[in-house]
C-alpha cells in the first residue's frame, strides 16, 4: 500500500486497542473452549427494571423528608423515665464497697483478652518484637491450621501488588 494512502486513512481505533488485542483474543479463545458456563442462571422478577426508578424515587423522597416526632405521646413517660434515671444515678453514686481503686490483678484474663481483641492498639512490629521473645517459637504456635501452598499463593495474590518485589528465587 502506498504511503500516500496510509496518510489518508480516515479510520481510528480506541486508545490502547492494539496493546490489548492479544490479551483480549486469548481470553476470548479460552472462554470458547472453557467448561465454565457463559451465563449464571440468575433472573429477576417481571418488570423489575421498569419499576426500579419509581421505587428508588420513593425511597429517596422518604429519606429526605424530615421525620415528625410526636412529642405528646411521650409526655406520660417523662415522669417515669425521670424517676428511674434519678434512682439509677443514686445507685451509681453510692459507694457500696469502698476500695482504694481497681488493681491490675482485679482484671479477669478474659477481660484483658477481650480488650486486645476489640481495640486497635496500633503497635508496630518492632514494638511487639521488643516485648515478645521469639526464640523457640514456631509458626504453628500462632496458627490452628497448617498452610498449604495454594493458600499461600492466594494470600500473596490477594495482598502483594507486585510479586516480583518479593525476589523469590525459583528453585524448581
Amino acid at each position, binding site marked *: 500500500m502506498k504511503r500516500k494512502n496510509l496518510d489518508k486513512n480516515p479510520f481510528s481505533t480506541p486508545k*490502547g486497542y492494539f496493546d*490489548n488485542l492479544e*490479551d*483480549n483474543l486469548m*481470553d476470548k479463545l*479460552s*472462554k470458547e473452549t*472453557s*467448561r*465454565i*458456563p*457463559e*451465563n*449464571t*442462571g*440468575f*433472573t*429477576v*422478577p417481571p418488570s*423489575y*427494571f421498569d419499576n*426500579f*426508578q419509581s*421505587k*428508588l424515587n420513593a*425511597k*429517596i423522597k422518604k*429519606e429526605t423528608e424530615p421525620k415528625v416526632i410526636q412529642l405528646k405521646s411521650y409526655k406520660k413517660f417523662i415522669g417515669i423515665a425521670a424517676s428511674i434515671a434519678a434512682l439509677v444515678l443514686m445507685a451509681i453514686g453510692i459507694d457500696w464497697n469502698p476500695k482504694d481503686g481497681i488493681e491490675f490483678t482485679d482484671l479477669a484474663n478474659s477481660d484483658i483478652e477481650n480488650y486486645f481483641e476489640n481495640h486497635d492498639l496500633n503497635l508496630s512490629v518492632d514494638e511487639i518484637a521488643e516485648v515478645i521473645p521469639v526464640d523457640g517459637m514456631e509458626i504453628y504456635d500462632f496458627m490452628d491450621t497448617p498452610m498449604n501452598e495454594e493458600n499461600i*499463593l*492466594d494470600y500473596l*495474590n*490477594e495482598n502483594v*501488588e*507486585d*510479586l516480583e518485589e518479593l525476589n523469590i528465587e525459583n528453585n524448581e
Partner: protein
Amino acid sequence: MIAEETLVKELKSKDTQAHAFEVLVSTYKERLYWHIRRIVLNHDDADDVLQNTFIKVFRNIEGFKGDSKLFSWMYRIATNEALSFLKQKTKKLGISDVDYQEKMVENLQADVYFEGDDIQLKLQKAIATLPEKQKLVFNMKYFEDLKYEEISEILNISVGGLKASYHLAVKKLENYLTQD
C-alpha cells in the same frame, strides 16, 4: 447517549438534577444490578444494595471530581456497598465469610429467581471458594466483559495483578468443574 461530562454537569445543577438522575439510573441500573447480584447472589439483597448505591451516588455527586470516569466511580460505590452488605450480614449472623457464601449458594436451589442448571449451580459453588479479589475480577472480566483497564480503575489494582488473579481464578474454576 448523553455525554458523561454533560451528565455530571447536569447532576450537579439543582435545576437539571432530577432529570439527569433519571437518565443516570436508566443508563446504569441493569449493569450495576448484575454486578451486585453476582456478589450478593440473592435478588432482594441485590435490590437493596442497588438502591443504596444510587442513593449514595445522588448524595455524593457534588464531591465527584472527575478524576475517574463516572461509570468507574459508580462501579466502585456498588462494589463497596455490596461487600459492606456481606460483611454486615456475616457479623449479624456470627459466621465467617466462607460459611455465609456457602449458605447463600445452598439457598440458590430454592431461589425462584435462580433458574440455573446443575453446572451453573456448581459454578456458583466454585466461585464461592475463591478469595474475594479473584471472585470480583473473574465476574467482572468473564461475565461483565469489562476491560482490564476498566477493572483496574474500579478496583485500584494494577493490570498485571488483575491478569494474574483472573487466570488463577479461571484455572481453579476449571479444576473445580471437572471434578465429579
